[in-house]
């Protein structure tokens, strides 16, 4: 209970966590099976894997939207990769990337090898991706959600409707320019009355 443990004053952002991050990285290095899987992916796709990032013990590959289906199908079917479960497929909005502000991420899990992988692609406004519901049926809701929240179209999706929001909802709520309270201010409190 002494004050000795508070020798470090709160540090500003950016400089604060260098020590911590290296500690975490050392503690969670990649699993050997995942290293094998990554090597196999690199061998198969080479320069088509635009970026590779390893942080917090997690491996991320950035690919072009055109390779989305091919890479994910390989991830599922290749025996050394064996990603039999799509943990989540989600969208993201990065307005600072002017040309390709939308990201779609797939988190894959392998039950046979017990490793995880993240595959990411960047899309322009109005961009579209092929659906992966053929590989993992669980992508159905995920893709519907990504479409309604970010406006990323998934071509070939069997049922691309709004999932969570009301049928007549306008706008893509999880985009950064969408206000938290909704587009029509106070609509819910005042204007809904009498309409339903």
């Amino acid at each position: 209970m002494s004050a000795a443990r508070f020798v470090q004053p709160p540090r500003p952002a950016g400089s604060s966590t260098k020590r911590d991050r290296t500690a975490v990285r050392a503690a969670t290095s990649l699993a050997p099976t995942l290293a094998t899987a990554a090597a196999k992916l690199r061998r198969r796709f080479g320069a088509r894997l635009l970026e590779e990032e390893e942080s917090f013990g997690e491996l991320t590959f950035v690919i072009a939207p055109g390779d989305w289906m091919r890479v994910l199908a390989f991830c599922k079917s290749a025996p050394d990769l064996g990603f039999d479960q799509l943990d989540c497929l989600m969208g993201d909005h990065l307005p600072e990337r002017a040309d390709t502000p939308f990201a779609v991420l797939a988190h894959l899990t392998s039950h046979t090898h017990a490793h995880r992988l993240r595959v990411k692609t960047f899309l322009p406004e109005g961009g579209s991706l092929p659906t992966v519901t053929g590989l993992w049926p669980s992508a159905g809701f995920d893709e519907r959600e990504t479409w309604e929240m970010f406006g990323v179209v998934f071509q070939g999706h069997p049922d691309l409707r709004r999932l969570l929001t009301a049928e007549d909802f306008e706008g893509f709520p999880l985009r950064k320019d969408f206000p938290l309270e909704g587009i029509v201010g106070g609509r819910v409190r005042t204007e809904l009355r009498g309409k339903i």
Partner: protein
Amino acid sequence: MSDVIDSGTAQARDVDATPSDAPPRPTLEQLKERKARTRQRLETGGDIMTISMGPQHPSTHGVFQMVLDLDGEVIVDLRPEIGNLHRGVEKLCEHRTYHQIIPLTDRLDYNSAFAMNHGFCEAAEKLMGVEVPARARYIRTIAHELSRLANHILWLGVHIMDLGTQTFFVICFRDREYLLDLFEMLTGARLTHSFARIGGVAKDLPDGFEQRCRKVIEFLPKRIAEYERIVKHNRIYYKRAKDVGIFTSEDCYAWRVTGPTLRAAGVARDLRKDEPYAAYDEIDFEVAVEYNADVYDRFLVRMTEMRESCKIIRQCLDGLPDGPYVARDAAHSLPMKRDVLRDSAAMIQDFYQVFRGPQAPKGEVYRAVEVPKGEMGVYIRSEGGAKPARVRFTTPSFYHGQAMPALAVGEMVSDLVAIFASVDVVLGDSDK
């Protein structure tokens, strides 16, 4: 006593037999064949009637809507509709500091609120590199397992009530109240406790908690045995649950169905073992596995899990280490409350954390934990600073509700409530 209650057939008794004379475990092919047999009902080719079940229906556990295509009594198609409880948690998270997000996670799966708090904090700690002290890890494990017990008891009561008995629901709620009392003692709230903190928990175990907790976990296994006496050998339940809603391990992978449903399909997948967090790697416990992949086995898995939870809590109480209950990390976690009143540095830290929030590094993390309903993953992308740039909760109910067509097509509509309850969907969890 068991003779009075036990009205099971000889066939039902077999299920409870010792492992030596237990029926052989079905292989994946046999399970698929059983499932294909139910699908044969679809070939009659009668007229299709479409009805909507929910959102207001007593056995949809909230406001889940299923649009059913029926051929007579057989479900030909099923379209799940969710979103009736959507409130934009993920959007709200982008406007809150990491500390302020914790109360939002309570209301995801309100039956096991602590497990949700815990999942988010694990992800945030991974991002910030906070090391949780040993005592906090043990307290978290205790609270996590208490929430698992509370969730499974609630599940059991509601599941059996869906199948037609009101009394059993009352029995389950009798015992759930003891768990909620423990939570109230520990956190101050019965349901939405917001107890986990980044780097630890909100406060230490209160005086007298240990004795009371021990008392509860001493008698709870007896109560679990009582549930089994009433339900497990009950002929009506056996007939309604056995070989209904078969969902093989392959189906589970494809539809991302996790938790007890996956373990009932013969896969010993449990993130508490596979990717240990909190104190689970220091605790000795078994993963509950069953092999028939039907509603009945999901019930059995949950019963075993409840016993294991009692075991885990007992071990945690036995080996509870001393020390701080929250990490001594001035940049990321709140200080211990008792220090704030005595120590100026701790007070500064408290002000800093409350007004500015924890300063997270840039980066993205995905962390999954085993909550009572399945695997809950939390994805956080941070651009530095106190607020995340994107948070995604990969909640189990979202996928369990989605898998309803694969679970229920070919089954009778009267079995639908049993199947739906057996995968344990909570709408606050699925709608986010």
